[in-house]
């Protein structure tokens, strides 16, 4: 009995020592408060493979392939990914990107959980990932709030959490390791800058009345894109007739657009839709009301501004029905694998990581838009471009 107890205490102290070593190494790495979280993750790795020195393992056994995916040859990493659902083409493309990147033959074991649009399912998935002892938890949070306790549980279990795509509220910032995704505010700013350029170009006088169809209230995409519009409207003297939520869903957007068309009878110049699926619904509603979507405001056409740039959205853009479609890149698998590599090698990782995105239109006149002094290109949509894209 006594022997057992001694043995246990020896092992325990060994573990504590290993733990403090890990923390020591990690301390230099990050001012970002997540050091503790990822350090604990490293500890587990150390105890799993005590012989292999960490840097060598990273240095020799990984390379980045042509698609920007980190291929691992060493120990397989288990990644738990809680996806929001399968509600749109965009979401499907992001799921496919994750599955293609974190394949077994790339050296990963991806546990994919589809939350079917429910936060409680995501919370359950995080708990399951913790029970399964995954190396990383990747979360695409459906809403910004309500994650504190789940993130804390993961932190206590020493599993680093990477938030992708949507955001969690800033108060929880120190509970996750890093965030990777789109700059929704910048997307909105670019769309508004494009509208400003269009209105300047056509020198359309008279009021600019905007119907604003918002996404699911409280989601990061909605907040960023809405704020951009509100600020641009204030700056340019645009009139926002109504801001209503279409929940990112085609049917709902069509219903609210139908009503707005009757309410403002012919007084709408611009419809600002916060995603492609809602734009489809708006286009249907406009056409049923005998209004042509387009860019010639002076001829009574209604300018439709959309986001996402899914294949279908770009097809509408090519037809000129969507005036400008600002991209929201769903292919976050490859950049995520590079972010994970940085974390594995103990590199300093920024809290917020953005990836590059495009903007598409068929209006000849506008080739760039400027936001905060920086120029962004606007790409012409061609059939070839649509064919080449992955989503």
């Amino acid at each position: 009995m006594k022997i057992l107890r001694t043995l246990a205490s020896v092992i325990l102290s060994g573990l504590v020592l290993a733990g403090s070593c890990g923390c020591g190494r990690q301390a230099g790495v990050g001012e970002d408060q997540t050091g503790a979280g990822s350090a604990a993750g490293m500890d587990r790795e150390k105890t799993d493979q005590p012989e292999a020195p960490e840097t060598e393992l990273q240095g020799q056994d990984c390379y980045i392939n042509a698609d920007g995916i980190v291929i691992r040859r060493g120990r397989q990493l288990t990644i738990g990914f809680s996806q929001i659902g399968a509600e749109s083409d965009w979401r499907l493309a992001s799921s496919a990107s994750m599955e293609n990147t974190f394949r077994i033959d790339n050296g990963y074991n991806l546990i994919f959980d589809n939350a079917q649009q429910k936060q409680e399912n995501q919370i359950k998935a995080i708990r399951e990932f913790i029970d399964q002892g995954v190396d990383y938890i990747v979360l695409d949070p459906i809403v910004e709030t309500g994650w504190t306790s789940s993130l804390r549980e993961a932190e206590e279990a020493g599993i680093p959490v990477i938030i992708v795509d949507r955001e969690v509220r800033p108060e929880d910032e120190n509970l996750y390791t890093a965030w990777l995704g789109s700059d929704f505010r910048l997307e909105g700013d670019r769309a508004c800058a494009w509208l400003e350029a269009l209105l300047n170009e056509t020198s359309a006088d008279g009021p600019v009345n905007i119907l604003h169809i918002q996404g699911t209230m409280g989601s990061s995409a909605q907040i960023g894109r809405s704020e951009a519009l509100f600020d641009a409207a204030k700056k340019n003297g645009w009139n926002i007739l109504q801001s209503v939520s279409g929940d990112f869903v085609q049917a709902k957007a069509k219903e609210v657009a139908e009503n707005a068309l009757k309410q403002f009878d012919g007084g709408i110049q611009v419809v600002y839709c916060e995603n492609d699926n809602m734009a489809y619904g708006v286009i249907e509603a406009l056409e049923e009301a005998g209004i042509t979507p387009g860019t010639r405001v002076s001829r009574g056409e209604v300018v439709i501004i959309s986001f996402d740039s899914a294949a279908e959205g770009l097809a509408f853009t090519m037809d000129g029905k969507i005036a400008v479609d600002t991209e929201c890149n769903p292919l976050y698998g490859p950049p995520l694998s590079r972010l994970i590599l940085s974390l594995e090698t103990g590199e300093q990782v920024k809290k917020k990581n953005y990836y590059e995105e495009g903007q598409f239109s068929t209006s000849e006149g506008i080739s760039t838009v400027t936001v905060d002094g920086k120029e962004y290109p606007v790409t012409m949509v061609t059939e070839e471009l649509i064919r080449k894209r992955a989503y």
Partner: protein
Amino acid sequence: MKKKTLFGRLSSSNLLLPIVSLILVMAVNIVFDIASGNNPFSFFMITLQNTTSNGVVLYGRIIDILNRGSEAAILAIGMTLVVSSSAGTDISVGSVMSLCASFCCMLLAGYGVSSTNELAVPLVVGVLGGILMGVVCGAFNGTLVAVFQIQPMVATLILYSAARAIGLLLCNDLIVYVRNDAYAFFGGFLGPIPTPILITALCVIVMSLVLRKTALGMYIQSVGINRRASRISGLNSTRIIFLTYVLCGMFAGIAGIVNSSRITSADSNNIGLYLEMDAILAVALGGNSLGGGRFNLAGSIIGAYTIQAITTTLYALGVSTTQAPVFKAIIVILIVAIQSEPVKAYMKKRQAIKAA
């Protein structure tokens, strides 16, 4: 015997209050339009609109109400029968709608295909398949309620939670898009009239003919009033209750196909969401007792359109979509309170005093 006037007949039937509620909801719009300086009847205007996609169509808020209220009205038919025969509600109809839509789209697109312009099977096969799926779900519910005598809410709770998930399974966890004009017809237009309105009208007419011309309506009510007494007097209560659930499932299937045709896709997570509650509410607003027994089909249909009229009115008044449910709740409370027994008794008493 003196022939009654139309009003007299209405007021003696149970339809008066549901109709008054509907008119009151609509009247709000007249007041609002006058207050905001518009044509007082602009809410009720129906015009012909030239469209780029569908030719000339009917256009106006009343058309919107009739069109958007279709699914709830179709569901309300089945729900009325279920409530009457079994004194319970079928809370699975919304999920069954989603399942039927998914099954129909899966048949039309082929398993695992997420977007298609070409139909994999003839349209009729897909649509009948979807409706058949509804019948199967109804039969499942019916067996549990009628044969195993499980409480309706518990029995239908199974499909309430499972049907949506089965639908997702059928669609391989995807939203299946069937971008085909033939499929879009059921949520589109037939000539100038939105097809959902016609489908609803057809369902209502056929069902009321069946209930009137056969003894089915009477059987359902008598089973609902007293199951044992009906059995003793020679009615097969089990079979009749089973039948109402099958019908309810079938109507859920039809509603599901209409809803999915509107967006030419099977969005399992959103189709029919919370619609079971609207259907139950429609039955209640129509002056039917949720305790079973006597029913009034016309009342339920009016109830369904009243709910949609409230929604459309709130849109017209510019109430934001996030706050609309609060106002909807307040209006529903008022309507239900007006129809409650104590209020009715009070009104009757006042009338008697007046007459004396």
